[in-house]
């Protein structure tokens, strides 16, 4: 139960949503853009957030649907994880969406919500980071198109009052060789202990990670090590783990030392499969 009242606004256009957000801010109220709501409900229940208003963006046409053209795939921020998974248009992103929460929640959680929420894993971001996706945001100043990596540092970081509208993946990424490996404490449906997501640009391996550190990331330094094909997989895996950008994350699901072990093992397997041509 959410033990407080709040206003609910169902915006029909981007301008309406942004104007409503601005109106709340001007009144000193807190507003949240709302799509799937799974995290808003959980956090409001637990007393961690107390919004005065939620602005539902699901009706806004720009936030909906997926469009494939000769240049790539554009995905609305209000698409659910399950829609993306079932559309099978971006296989790697589909794999990522299919391993976040359970099916019931995949039918509720949206792409925008997974990227923007406060839960630290944001696993849907990894394929977008790897494919140099573009993000389209809408705010008080109108529309803004930027590289996804520019607005996603640890989590989506829009400007005040701004909302994610769409993301766009380039066409090469939709058919590229890839791997998605998610390791959990023991239960399959769980947060990642380690999520290694890999996408090949030609013969170059790109890799992004979640669960390993306190925030998801893609690291040029680690990618360089992983692509040192003169070294054996075990050595590359060891060196890559040594090059983590920050200390491995530790919480109730696993210690940092253990996460590093799982990462090393996972990378070694991935590299071996690559060498064997079995990816």
């Amino acid at each position, binding site marked *: *139960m*959410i*033990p*407080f*009242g709040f206003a609910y606004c169902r915006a029909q256009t981007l301008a309406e949503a942004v104007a409503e957000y601005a109106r709340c801010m001007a009144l000193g109220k807190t507003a949240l853009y709302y799509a799937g709501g799974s995290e808003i409900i*959980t956090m409001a*229940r*637990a*007393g961690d957030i107390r919004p005065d208003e939620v602005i539902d963006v699901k009706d806004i046409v720009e936030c909906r649907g997926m469009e494939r053209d000769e240049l790539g795939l554009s995905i609305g921020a209000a698409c659910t994880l399950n829609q993306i998974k079932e559309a099978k248009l971006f296989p790697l992103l589909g794999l990522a969406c299919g391993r976040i929460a*359970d099916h019931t929640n995949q039918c509720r959680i949206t792409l925008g919500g997974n990227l923007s929420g406060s839960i630290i894993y944001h696993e849907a971001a990894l394929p977008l980071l790897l494919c140099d996706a573009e993000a389209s945001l809408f705010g008080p100043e109108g529309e803004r198109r930027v590289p996804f990596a520019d607005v996603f540092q640890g989590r989506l970081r829009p400007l005040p009052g701004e909302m994610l509208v769409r993301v766009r993946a380039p066409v090469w990424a939709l058919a590229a060789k890839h791997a998605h490996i998610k390791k959990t*404490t*023991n*239960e*399959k*449906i*769980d*947060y990642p202990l380690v999520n290694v997501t890999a996408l090949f640009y030609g013969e170059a391996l790109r890799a992004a990670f979640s669960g390993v550190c306190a925030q998801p990331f893609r690291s040029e330094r680690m990618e360089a090590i992983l692509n040192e094909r003169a070294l054996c997989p075990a050595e590359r895996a060891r060196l890559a783990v040594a090059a983590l950008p920050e200390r491995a994350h530790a919480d*109730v*699901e*696993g*210690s940092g*030392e*253990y996460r590093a*072990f*799982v990462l090393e*093992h996972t990378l070694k397997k991935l590299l071996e499969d690559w060498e064997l041509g079995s990816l």
Partner: protein
Amino acid sequence: MNMALNASIHRKEAWDKVCGRAKYADDLPAADHLCARLLTSTRAHARILGIDTAGASALPGVKAVLTGEDCDLLFGPLLQDRYALARGVARYAGEPVAMVVAVDEPAAEAAARRIAIEYEDLPPLLTPSQAMLPNAAPIHEKLADYKRVVSDVRPEPGTNVAARHRVRKGDAKAAFARCAAVIEKRFFLPPSDHLAMEVRAARAEIAADGNVLVTTCSQAPYTVKKQLAEAFKIEAGMITVRVPFVGGGFGGKAPVTLEILAYLASKSVGGRPVRLTIPREQDMASFPCRMGLEATVRLGADENGMLQAAEMEFLVDCGAYTDISPNMAKAIAADCTGPYRVENLSCDALCVYTNHTYATSFRSFSHDSYTFCVERALDALANRLGFDPLELRLKNAVRPGDFTPTGVPATPELTGDVSRCIEEVKRLSCWDGGRPLSLGGSKVRAKGVSCFWKSANPPTNAVSGAFVTFNSDGSVNLLTGVVEMGSGGHTQLAQILAEKLKLDPAQVHVVAHVDTRVAPEHWKTVASLTGYMAGNAVLRAADDLIAQLKRTGAEALGCAEAEIEVADGRVYSIKEPERFMLLKAVAQGYQTPGGASVGEPALGRGGYMLKGLSMLDPATGKGRTSPQWTPGAQVVEVEADLEACTYRVITACCVLDVGKVVNPAATRAMIAGGMSMGVSLATREAYEYDENGSPRAPNLRTYKLLHIGQEPEYRVDFVETPDPTAPCGARPYTEHGIIGIPAALANALSAAFGCALDGLPLRPEAIRRAIGGAP
């Protein structure tokens, strides 16, 4: 022979449940109810210096704010050591400290969050061994003053020992000296949760004439009535407790908890109806959970692998309050060896206070926990002696002529056939001698075995009862005090009654919900004793009914009662079966074609009280706690990746001596359900506490259960050694599937990884630590 037994009929409540129409305690209309919410302690151990309720009381819609100062009564089924709301001291993080009653849930919740509490932290004690240290401060300073509800709970004031049970048999010390192999192991098993799908809820109201009505999700409605009556000095006849379907209990809904608070809440607002609900997080952290256990087990055997001696110490982590935990320590003592012959035995089972969430009964009543320790120790012994672990168990299995730890002579009727269970599970699991099989690369397959037995620990005078009435179509209604919480008790009772009355089980209608004003008392729906206790009451009610039908039939047919038979919906003379009357024509008394009335309406009633049980001798443990034992054997097979330290559970097998199978499909499902719970418990579940004693993340985002789709293949089979004192010879079976699974899994993984895995849960990280892979 009727077809009611050995028939896989659907559960009586199946249609209601699969259509989503079954009603649970908090589903009933509540339009006129006020709402109550709790504020719980954020500290594991702290003095409560002050509670400021002014901010909460000032909120609109708030009707009452209660704290520990509003009720000085102590509660507890065995030892009265717990206030309804913490008074003076909070002893675990999550302990209810204040309660708000308001017009609706949001108002109550908002007010609860406005209450300010000033704490002074006290050092928390977070493990039994820590609490047992000589310098450990007692968590309960007034332990000596607490009222003992039963005579066999003996707290030790000045310490954290709430109860102690001893078993002494033979001369363990001397026997160890003769052993060819002696092993000793220590175990640490964390507490975990029941996690029934239905979160606990209760409602209460006090009528103008003082009548109290409580609606709750309890497994023990008659205990709710009794405890409320005694504590609040209400005549028991003034109290009605109603229990609709319960959405899973697993022992967690046997204690009286929310009912007391709901009553206090209603009382604080002049008796108005109050609905007390709690979120899942409070259900986990604030209300009783599964016990933790620390243990040391020492086993000795001769060169042939025959057990010669055992020395055991079990420290039950009961958390901050005893609830039923002293009896769980007793249950450990009574069955501590497992189903093996051990003639020289010394066992101490203690119930120890800590600053954890308090514990209560959990499926199998501690048997899963101590079995883990004993069965791991047996594998270590088999390793040491170079024996096949299954064969070692077979050698030592209890046989006629042996005795249970508390000196009860083992007979097939009483203790079942352990050896057959082992032999059957050997076949069912394609047992491989306990040797891992390499699959190439870093993958291996391995199997582990565990045996178990389970007895019950009811009060020696526990009762049950049954009423049977007729409908105009000749079908019958069965009324008992048994709560249906998914364990299939109502269906089993219907089959027992149908068999006795020679009716189709579809002709037996079971009253689904319990109302203590209407149904005869049934002690509690716990301990897998429904089929035994209520089943015996049902048989007596059926006998009573048949006797009445025979009287009426004899009079109507003009023959002797001894000639009358009741079967297949008819009453007839065995000498002239063609002369019969339909049951429905006799059930309410018979009317002759001429209009004369004959006989009386038939109303069946049966009462049953346990007999022949005793307290355990405090010095030696001698005595008998249970009507019978149910033994079983289980094997778990895993596929392990030695390099990654990960594994999958492939198959889980269970052979249980159920005495007699009443409903094969339902029994299989119930046992497989227990096995699934065991796999979940052993692979994933634990309450983890930080160094201050606060549970880390007590919510379902991080506390993971086994999800559907990740289950192993379950293979269940039965041995049938009838218990002549039980209806149809059927032994208790409902809890049992869980008992040996954690041990069998740990044995399989220990074999696979070649190391000793002696803790739970068996997460890959723990395995890696055990094989020495971590710094």
